[in-house]
């Protein structure tokens, strides 16, 4: 049988980089082919070529055995290739129907939109593939998982046969991700074919029929999920042995480093984002704050680090009231902050690495003598940290913006962890990073914990929370639903809490389920 899609010898060069190096890829009808690779491995470039956004320098594409010249996304869509982007392309104030119709409008005579007919089609599609969605809801009222379904419906509405999912689980809760996998399975059962781009190892093992690993623009190999395990895939991705399980000693909690009492914080729109939260973090332990993006974690971190005004409640650092302190004072109290958005808050991208490495301490000796910056010291410091933290950069005066995401994050980590600190606030410290960098940053955080630093870790990645934390607090709509020791936490339990299910009910549900399956 001819494969539905075949890429032969696709090569794409960017100035100085070989993004895709003679890539061969075959997609069989009705299968899920996972494309696994670190960030910058060339997965996205390859898919953009397939989608007509880039022109390959060499190589050919065949769809159903026919050569296929693609010049724009509309060519791709016309040949039944559709892409679910990581960031949804939906208009929040339009209904599901309107969003699905957009660009492919069904018209009544006289040029009026035929919403009814389109809605009917959407209902058909959703029953056929198990994509539950109400065509008349407004996008802005829908949870992220449902919005993603709308994206999928958009493609099916245009009769796509080959669906490309680009990191689809990045924005989902574990439960939503599981639902997505069911949908993917249901799609392939009915003859659709899927390319699934990800860097999450567990997901591909769960869902893929074939896994192709890409590293530095080259296909490293294809394996069947039954023949692979996580560490094998990880070492294929990174090109060396990777320790997936973080080895860590039991925590030895000491005195309280950070205490938050009844904290109330509002967001930019003056809506309550953090709603009366209290917790403590002790020296030598990691408190993980889990939760789906947008449940007040951002505002919590900003309030604790002095970047956002506190409306009510108190914050204590080492038992001193620091409630309305500035970020500068926060730093001077021996605290470090790895911000959630490294490019927005954490770095000045056009500045060289060495300047970014002194962003918080530029005014202190040895970097400044009075008002004069001692550039020799700054350069020495940078050269040392680049070595110590393995920041891959041509030199210390290379601008931070030209580094890869992982190395940008290492610059921040190096800067924040190279000072003597009592408290580390790490928000999404590994978002969007590759396995190698994640491994490194995790080990650094645990090293600090073992040296007696209190760590407040905020992450939407459940794996990360479970691996690093000693205690886990789950945030939902600005409140902490529960704080549980990691030993008692399971992925399922945290997942339910993240979806807003109260602790008792969640435990009950899990128990019932296990009784059921037994």
């Amino acid at each position: 049988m001819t494969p539905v899609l075949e890429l032969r010898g696709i090569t794409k060069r960017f100035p100085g980089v070989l993004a895709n190096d003679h890539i061969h890829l075959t997609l069989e009808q009705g299968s899920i082919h996972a494309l696994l690779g670190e960030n910058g491995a060339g997965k996205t470039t390859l898919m953009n070529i397939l989608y007509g956004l880039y022109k390959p320098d060499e190589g050919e594409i065949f769809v159903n055995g026919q050569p296929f010249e693609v010049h724009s996304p509309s060519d791709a869509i016309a040949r039944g290739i559709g892409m679910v982007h990581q960031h949804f392309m939906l208009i929040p104030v339009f209904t599901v129907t309107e969003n699905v119709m957009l660009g492919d409008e069904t018209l009544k005579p006289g040029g009026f939109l035929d919403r009814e007919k389109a809605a009917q089609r959407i209902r058909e599609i959703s029953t056929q593939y198990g994509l539950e969605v109400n065509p008349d809801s407004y996008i802005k009222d829908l949870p992220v998982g449902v919005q993603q379904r709308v994206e999928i419906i958009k493609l099916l509405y245009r009769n796509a046969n080959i669906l490309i999912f680009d990191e689809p689980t990045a924005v989902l809760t574990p439960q939503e991700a599981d639902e997505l996998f069911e949908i993917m399975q249901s799609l392939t059962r009915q003859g659709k074919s899927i390319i699934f781009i990800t860097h999450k190892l567990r997901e591909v093992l769960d869902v893929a029929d074939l896994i192709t690993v890409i590293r530095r623009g080259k296909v490293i190999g294809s394996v069947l999920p039954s023949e692979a395990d996580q560490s094998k895939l990880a070492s294929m991705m990174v090109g060396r042995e990777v320790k997936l399980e973080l080895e860590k000693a039991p925590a030895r909690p000491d005195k309280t480093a950070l205490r938050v009492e009844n904290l109330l914080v509002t967001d930019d729109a003056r809506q309550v984002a953090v709603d009366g939260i209290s917790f403590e973090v002790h020296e030598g332990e990691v408190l993980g704050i889990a939760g789906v993006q947008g449940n007040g974690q951002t505002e919590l971190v900003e309030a604790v680090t002095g970047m956002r005004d506190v409306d009510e409640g108190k914050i204590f650092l080492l038992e001193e009231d620091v409630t309305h302190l500035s970020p500068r004072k926060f730093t001077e109290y021996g605290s470090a902050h790895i911000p959630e958005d490294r490019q927005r808050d954490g770095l000045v991208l056009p500045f060289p690495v060495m300047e970014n490495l002194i962003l918080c301490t530029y005014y202190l000796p040895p970097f400044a003598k009075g008002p004069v910056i001692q550039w020799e010291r700054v350069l020495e410091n940078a050269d040392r940290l680049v070595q110590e933290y393995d920041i891959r950069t041509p030199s210390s005066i290379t601008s931070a913006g030209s580094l890869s995401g992982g190395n940008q994050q290492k610059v921040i980590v190096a800067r924040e962890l190279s000072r003597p600190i009592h408290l580390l606030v790490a928000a999404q410290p590994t978002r969007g990073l590759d396995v190698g960098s994640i491994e490194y940053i995790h080990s650094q955080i645990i090293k600090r914990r073992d040296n007696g630093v209190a760590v407040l870790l905020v992450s939407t990645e459940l794996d990360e929370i479970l691996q690093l934390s000693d205690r886990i607090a789950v945030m939902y709509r600005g409140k902490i639903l529960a704080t549980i020791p990691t030993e008692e936490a399971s992925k399922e339990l945290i997942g339910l809490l993240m979806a807003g299910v109260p602790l008792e009910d969640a435990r009950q549900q899990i128990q019932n389920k296990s009784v059921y399956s037994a």
Partner: protein
Amino acid sequence: MTTNPEKSKKPGFWKIFLEELTNRGKQPGDDKKGKGRIGQIILIPLLAVVTGLILGAIFIVLTTEEVYAGFGRSFGAGLAASWDIVSTSYAALFTGAFGNPARMIAALQTGTDLEIRRAFNPFLESLVTSTPYIFAGLAVALGFRAGVFNIGAEGQIFVGAITATFVGYSVTGLPAIIHLPLALLAGALGGAAWGYIPGWLKAKTGGHEVINTIMMNYIAFRLSDFLLTGPMKRPDSFNPVSPEVLSTAWLPRFFPDPIRFHLGFFIALGIAYLVYWYLFKTTWGFELRTVGTNPNAAKYAGMNVTRNIILAMSLSGALAGLAGANEVLGVNHILAMAFSSGYGFDSIALALLGNNHPLGVVLASLLFGTLRNGATRMQLSAGIPIDIISVLQAVILAFIAAPAIIRTIYRLRAPAVEEGGITIRSWGGN
């Protein structure tokens, strides 16, 4: 490394300097192409000037009656007339800007002081014209580095000129060593005050500095009109001019009249170095540049964003004020209406042309000053309207502001990342 620190340090610092010079405060390209970037930083302005001169020649040809008359007679005569007018014009531009080489050599051979000075005067006069450009260009560049778009340099020049003039004629009995610095300081403070207001408004209320500096310009123009027809009017004159500044407040000239070359040029160079030092060597400058490039990161790093915005606008105003003081104390010795002839607006272009780097601004200012000075001569000896020079400058600037045009014309390869331009970010506001 430690055995020979001098040797290992130096290339590093030269590289750092280049980085500062080429770093426009924007998303950088792939650094492997750093060399190409530096090359283009020099190449593009150069090609822009050449292209500007070519287009200028076309304008000259199109606006000259003799050319039309020549073409009326025959095609050859028309071409000859075109060549004639363009070559006379540009020769005049050159001699007006730099002096006549033949005359210079002759003067050096005779060895008479007067002859030598006269021969070299056009060149010195170009430096005189460049001086206010340097001050004002630095003003705008410093603002850009801090992320504020100071369109108000023109108004700040006026206010600086007013305060410098006032101190220059009303404070009496001081020796030059005190009076002159005092008058310069007054100019700087006047400009600083005029920059402080929109800076404060931006930092505290979010009022956009572009709007507010434009409005401050109008206030400054009318304020100077009012003062020159009222309180500051010279009692014995019918014209709206101020009393003459006392000679103790003059910027000393190095040669007897009519050569106007004065100390202001060297002060401008000194200030340019000072601005460079401030921006790139001090913690204050580091804060300013951080605030200007990424205010969020500045806040994260514990810097006071509002204070730095106000400070940047005030310093920018002070530099522009010095441009005004320089013109009064060094060249005119009086304040007259509309004396500035748009230095403040040209300075925006200068900052852009100079990549917001003091060295770049000085070079751009020398180019502008030279062109403008040469234009005067071109007008006199070739009968070409001085406006042609404005057209020329505009064309050069358009090419520099939009390097894509030059790249397209000369088929240069674009850097990895297309420049967004710091101005765009600043227009976006807070």
